[in-house]
C-alpha cells in the first residue's frame, strides 16, 4: 500500500478550479490501473443489454466518481468487477488481475459497498462484522476482534455495536456496511452510493473518510448520482448512460470539456442598466440583467482582459459589488454532455 505511486492529479479540494489541471509528471504507467475494463459487455438472459462495450480505466490513487442515471449500468459494471456477475464479453481487471478469475487473490485487498448495506437483522452490529470477517479466508481469526473494533470505531458505531442490526436506522446500516468494507487495509474501495440515507452530518463524515482513505493511498471508486458529492471529493470521473460510457477523465477536464466551460461573466451591481451598456461596448454578448446583477457571455476571441473590463465599468461610474466568472459545475458539464436531465432513467 505504501508503495503506490503518488496521486496523479491535483488536490481533491479544488477539482473544478483552474489550478487543478492534471499534473503530467506522475501519470502511472499503462496497466497500472486499480480497475480497467475493456469492451466489457453484459447482456442479461432476458436480452437486455445492461453494459455495452465499456472501456473504463481507474488510475491507482485516484478518487474516481462513477456517474450515471438510474439504470445506466453502473451497478452491473461494479458487480462484474467484483466477480458477482460474469461478463458476456470483454474483460475487467481489478488490481491487475482479470475478474472473476482472480476473486480469491484480489478481493481481500478490495472493500466494497454494493447497492446499499445488507445485514443479518438478528445479529448485533459487531457480530455482523465478525461474520463478514470470518468469510474472508485470508483474515487471521486471532486478530478478528481487534479488526472489528477498529472498523466500528472508524465509522462511529462503537456505542451501538451491541444493538441488533434490525434496530439500526438506514444511516447506521450504511455505516456498518462501510465498516465491513474497511475491516482490513484496502488498496481499492468500491462504494456504490455511500451517502444514501445519511443525514448531512453523516454525508460530511463519509466525504472526510473518503479523503482520509485517499490520502493514505487507497483508490476509491465512488458511484453516485449526486454530482455535488462527486465534485467535492473526486479527482476523476466517468459518466455512463444506457449502458455506455459517455466520457471519462479528470473532473477538471470534464468540466472544461463542456460547451459552457468558460463560465459566464457575472457582475453584481446596483446599476444594471449602465453595466449592460458598458459591457455591450466591450463585446460581451447574451447579456441578462436582473435587479442587481448582470451576466453575459464573454466573446470567444479577443476577449477583453477582465481587469480592463472591470476598470471600464468603474470608470463609467458603475458601482461594482462583485465581479468575475461563474464557476462551471460538474452538473453544467453533465447536462452539456448528455443533453438531458440527470435523473431521467436510460
Amino acid at each position, binding site marked *: 500500500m505504501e508503495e503506490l505511486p503518488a496521486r496523479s492529479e491535483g488536490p481533491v479540494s479544488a477539482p473544478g478550479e483552474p489550478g487543478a489541471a492534471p499534473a503530467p509528471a506522475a501519470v502511472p504507467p499503462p496497466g497500472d490501473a486499480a480497475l480497467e475494463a475493456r469492451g466489457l459487455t453484459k447482456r442479461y438472459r432476458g436480452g437486455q443489454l445492461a453494459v455495452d462495450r465499456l472501456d473504463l480505466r481507474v488510475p491507482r490513487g485516484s478518487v474516481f466518481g462513477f456517474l450515471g442515471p438510474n439504470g445506466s449500468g453502473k451497478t452491473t459494471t461494479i*458487480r462484474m468487477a*467484483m*466477480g*458477482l*456477475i*460474469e461478463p458476456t464479453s470483454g474483460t475487467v481487471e481489478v488490481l491487475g488481475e482479470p475478474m*472473476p*478469475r*482472480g*476473486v*480469491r*487473490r484480489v*478481493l*481481500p485487498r*478490495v472493500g*466494497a459497498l*454494493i*447497492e*446499499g*448495506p*445488507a*445485514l*443479518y*437483522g*438478528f*445479529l448485533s452490529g459487531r457480530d455482523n462484522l*465478525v*461474520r*463478514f*470477517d*470470518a*468469510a*474472508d*479466508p*485470508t*483474515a*487471521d*481469526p*486471532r486478530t*478478528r476482534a481487534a479488526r472489528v473494533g477498529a472498523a466500528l470505531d472508524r465509522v462511529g458505531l462503537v456505542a451501538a455495536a451491541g444493538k441488533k442490526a434490525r434496530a439500526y436506522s438506514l444511516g447506521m446500516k450504511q455505516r456498518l*456496511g462501510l465498516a*465491513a468494507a474497511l475491516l482490513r487495509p484496502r488498496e481499492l474501495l468500491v462504494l456504490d452510493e455511500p451517502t444514501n440515507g445519511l443525514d448531512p452530518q453523516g454525508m460530511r463524515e463519509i466525504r472526510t473518510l473518503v479523503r482520509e482513505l485517499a490520502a493514505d493511498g487507497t483508490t476509491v471508486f465512488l458511484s453516485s448520482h449526486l454530482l455535488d458529492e462527486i465534485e467535492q471529493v473526486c479527482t476523476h470521473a466517468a459518466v455512463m448512460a444506457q449502458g455506455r460510457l459517455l466520457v471519462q477523465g479528470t473532473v477538471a477536464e470534464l468540466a472544461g470539456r463542456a460547451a459552457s466551460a468558460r463560465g459566464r461573466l457575472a457582475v453584481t451591481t446596483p446599476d444594471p442598466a449602465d453595466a449592460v451598456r458598458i459591457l455591450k461596448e466591450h463585446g460581451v454578448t447574451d447579456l441578462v440583467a436582473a435587479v442587481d446583477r448582470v451576466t453575459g457571455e464573454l466573446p470567444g476571441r479577443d476577449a477583453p482582459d477582465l481587469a480592463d473590463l472591470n476598470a471600464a465599468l468603474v470608470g463609467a461610474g458603475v458601482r461594482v459589488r462583485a465581479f468575475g466568472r461563474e464557476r462551471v459545475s460538474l452538473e453544467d458539464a453533465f447536462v452539456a454532455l448528455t443533453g438531458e436531465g440527470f435523473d431521467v432513467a436510460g
Partner: protein
Amino acid sequence: MSRAERQAAPAPAAREAYPLRRLSLFRSEIGTVFRRWRTLALLGVLAAVPVLVGIAVKVETGDGGTVGHGGEGPAFLSQVTNNGLFLVFTSLAATLPFFLPMAVGVVAGDSLAGEAASGTLRYLLVAPVGRTRLLLAKLTSTLVFCLAATMVVAVSALAVGALLFPLGDITLLSGTTVSFGEGLLRALAVAGAVALSLAGIAALGLFVSTLTNSGIAAMATTVGLLITAQIVDQFPQLEAVQPYLFPHYWLSFADVLRQPVYWDQLLDNFRLQALYAAVFGSAAWARFTTKDVTA
C-alpha cells in the same frame, strides 16, 4: 466461476499462516443458523412432539386401558407404557415422515436463497468467501441441523419417557431382551440413522436454494417436493420409482431394534441418501459456482 475456483489457489503465504481460519466460516455458519429465532422455533416444535405424545398416552392409559386400539398410530406406541425408552422410537417414527424433514427443508431451502434475499450473499462473496467454500459451509450447517433436530426429538422423548413411564430392560422387535444400557445405545443408533436419513432432503433443499433469490420460495419448493415424494411413495401403481424416492426407506431405522440388526434396508437407505447428497450436492455446486449474483 467454476473455472475460476479451480485455478485460483490461495496465496501460499496465507495458506500456511492460520490453520484455524479455515474453520472460522464453518463456526460462523453454524452459529448463524442456531441464533436465528426461526431455527429455535423449529427445534421448539420438535421438542414439543414427544411431550404431546407422552401426555396423550399417559392420559389414555391412566385408567388402565391400552393405547392405539389395535395397533393404530405411530410404530412402538403400544410399548410406551411398559418402557419410557419406547417414547424415543415412537416420537422419531412420528416426526420422521413430516416434521423433521420439513424443518430440514426450511433450513436448507433458506440457506443460500435467504442470504440472496437479504443481500448478505453479495457481501459474503466479495469478502471473498469463495463459492465452493460457502456451499460446503452451508451443507455442513444443514447437516448439523439435521443431527441437532433429531437429537432434540430423541432427548425430549427420553426425558418425557423417564418422567411419565417406567424404564428398564427392553424387549427388541425380534423378541430378545437387552439391558437398559444397551437400549440407550440402540436409541442413539436409531437417532443417528434418522439424522442420516435427512441428508437427501438437505442436499435437495440446498440445490433448490441455489435456483432462486427468494428464501420463502426455496423453502416452499423443498417442502413441496417432500410432500410429493411421500404421496408418490403411497401408490402401489408407482412401485417402479419408489426405491428411488428419498423417503422410501426412512422407517428402516426400526431394523436397528432387531437382534441381530437387520442391515439390508438400513444400508439401502444410507446408499440412497448418499446418492441424493452426491447428485444434488454436485448440481448445487454446478449451479452456484456459475451463477450471476444479482441480488
